């Protein structure tokens, strides 16, 4: 009986039901999208912050060098997903064209990832006798692109060709960069390193990463580059608060609009309610019918809203970051609960007011 009344009422009032469902769906979708952004975006931004450069540096603790073969520690599966990139270095002072210059051996493919702000005029070195020279060093040494020059370290000598000129605005502009193996050969320091720059996930994870590194690689001292780490921490913390507050505000606003729509819908039907009661319907039974309807509207609207909200947040993620953001599992139940909860609450609230009136008064239209 109740089911027949319910289905009949829904069929007859297709338009109004659709409007109510739309309102609930819209409100819920915005809440879901906001929450998804709130949780999904942090990971993306933490990654975005990696363009700030490495936030950890590994230096030898007691001995003068680190061992190159220990780099496998950084590829270990415990560290693999914490470390976004790393670049090994070996620093030596050598004579380039008769002048003392800091010569740095590194792996160019890795440094391009950890230091994306490096601006190279010409091209990145590919062969083992190609070098990258800082802009100031190049002008002081009188070197141009594709010039060949000799490097002397103690008794050994090698010749390089200048593939690119490097601009960073920092100390790197005074240095010359060559492939790591070549420098190790030149200086007879096979398999040794002086430091490793590590770009690790920012935020809370950083301290844990440091602790793991200390244990896994005891010969190396792990230093946190505070300039980068502090900037990241501050930004992420503020972002988190900001997005939480905005999600909260959106939640309130969405609640308001769903409330207003559902109240209208319930008000529209007071005559119907009064009629049912006048025909002998029990108060609880009548309330149950309308509550079931509100529940249905809330459920359908909520589910629709979740789907639209997910889509919306992915569109935003795609247009801002160029990739999908990981949807937050929390957002879906909250969106659904908002839809169902508010529509149920509103219709019950309005119903209580109407049921309190005498059916005769309502039916007379006062």
């Amino acid at each position, binding site marked *: 009986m109740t089911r027949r009344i319910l289905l009949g009422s829904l069929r007859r009032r297709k338009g109004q039901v659709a409007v109510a469902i739309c309102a609930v769906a819209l409100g819920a979708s915005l809440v879901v999208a906001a929450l998804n952004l709130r949780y999904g975006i942090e990971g993306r931004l933490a990654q975005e912050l990696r363009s700030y450069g490495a936030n950890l540096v590994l230096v030898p603790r007691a001995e003068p060098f680190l061992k190159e073969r220990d780099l496998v520690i950084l590829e270990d599966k415990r560290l693999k997903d914490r470390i976004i990139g790393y670049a090994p270095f070996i620093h030596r002072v050598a004579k380039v064209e008769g002048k003392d210059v800091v010569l740095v051996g590194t792996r160019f493919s890795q440094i391009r990832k950890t230091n994306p702000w490096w601006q190279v005029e010409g091209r990145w070195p590919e062969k083992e006798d190609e070098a990258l020279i800082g802009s100031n060093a190049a002008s002081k040494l009188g070197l141009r692109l594709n010039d060949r020059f000799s490097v002397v370290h103690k008794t050994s000598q090698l010749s390089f060709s200048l593939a690119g000129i490097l601009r960073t605005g920092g100390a790197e502009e005074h240095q010359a960069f060559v492939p790591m193996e070549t420098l190790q050969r030149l200086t007879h320091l096979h398999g040794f390193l002086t430091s490793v720059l590590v770009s690790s996930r920012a935020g809370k994870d950083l301290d844990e990463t440091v602790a793991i590194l200390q244990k896994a690689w005891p010969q190396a001292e792990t230093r946190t580059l505070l300039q980068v780490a502090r*900037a990241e921490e501050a930004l992420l913390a503020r972002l988190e608060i900001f997005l939480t507050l905005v999600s909260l505000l959106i939640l309130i606003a969405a609640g*308001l609009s769903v409330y*207003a729509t559902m109240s209208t819908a319930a008000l529209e039907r007071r005559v119907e309610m009064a009629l049912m009661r006048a025909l002998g319907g029990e108060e609880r039974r009548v309330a149950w019918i309308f509550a079931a309807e509100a529940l249905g509207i809330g459920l359908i609207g909520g589910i629709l809203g979740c789907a639209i909200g997910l889509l919306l947040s992915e569109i935003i993620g795609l247009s801002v970051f160029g990739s999908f953001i990981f949807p937050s599992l929390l957002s879906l139940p909250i969106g659904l609960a908002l839809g169902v909860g508010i529509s149920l609450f509103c219709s019950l609230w309005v119903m209580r007011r109407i049921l309190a009136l005498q059916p005769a008064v309502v039916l007379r239209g006062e």
Partner: protein
Amino acid sequence: MLGRLLAKSLWRGKARTALVVLSVATASTLVSAFLNIAFTVTEEMAKELRSFGANILVVPKSEPLEIAIGGLRFVAPEESAYLEEADLPWLKTTFWRHNIVGFAPFLSRMVEVEGEQALMVGTWFDREIPIPEGRRFFAFANGSRREVAPDKGTFRTGLKSLSRWWQVEGQWPREDEDGILIGSGLARTLGVGIGGNIRVALEERSAVLPVRGIARTGGEEEEQIFVHLKLAQELFSLPGKAEKVQVSALVKPDNALAARANRIGPANLPPEEYETWYCTPYLGSVSYQIEEVIPNAKAKAIRQVSEAEGAFLGKMRLTFIFVVAMAVLVASLAVMATMVTAIFERRQEIGLMKALGADAKQVRLLFLVEAGLTGIGGGILGYLGGLALAQLLSVRTFSLAGFGLSLSSQAAILPITLLIAVGVALLGSFFPAKEAMRLEPVKTLKGN
């Protein structure tokens, strides 16, 4: 007639009017708060970032080749070039001087510290400098001149405000007495603590200095010692000199114009574009203006900081725009829904008017004007509420010691808030009023 009707209708339904205005106000509060945040949040973020390192490095035009390794630094004596410390206050007279939030000069040499080689760096820790006076004109290629009122008074700056990430145990040394800030690595090697004295020697000159603080940065600074600039100049016998200056400037992320100016050089831009470029705080134009006031200097972007900042702020801005657009949409929905309910409750009134011979136009006008007034009232209330709310939010979000909150109430926010409130209120009442007009008066009056 309309006026009287309106006044009566609003007055008689005081409680109802108040309720509708209140709900419109609530929604407009959210709109205005969101807009406030959107307008200022990226600026606040940019400011925040400025406390994490300088983004411009000023060096002598003939920058010497340094050999810097493991915190040590050597320069061939015949190559050395310097800037004049006395020129620095001119930094606060450039076109974008307000955007220059801090700077500090540096002068360093290898010295012998208790028998160990270490780099001694002279700098300003926390210095108050007078800003040079005088009117300033900025002339442009097309002949136009702009005068900018000079800044007055003094400007406080130095390493302490420039490098907020430094963890200093003990105290920062003072400008008016000799004292050392020592890197934590070097302090450990030498075995000195706060309050101890260390001997610093360069050639035949030497000094015994008290240790005031120990600095941890994670970088090469941990192997160096820092003193105030004057002391370093005396010890190195380089009076009034500095070898480089770090400048922290608030800049806008580069756009196409800035990129072109960087590529072809500002002098080759057409005059109008040059003026736009000069009058926008891009990293390039601020650097260019620094080179204009400091003789023999070259200003370079510290790309690690500037690139990351530009990319990050760009992304943030886009995110905020989306989030705020979403929020404004929800708030508008709330206003509209409220208005629909309000009109709906007054169906009978509409029916009555119609039954008494009012034509559709008049009734619609009445309701629209009423909605408009409600929108204006709610909008203004909401604007004020939004200001307060935004203030609250930003205090919670961006309260970092040292940054005064400058949530300027942007002029654009009031009209936008009002426009949204009124527009949405009108839209919200238009359809239900029309719907009510379509119904037979008899039916509405009967209450079906």
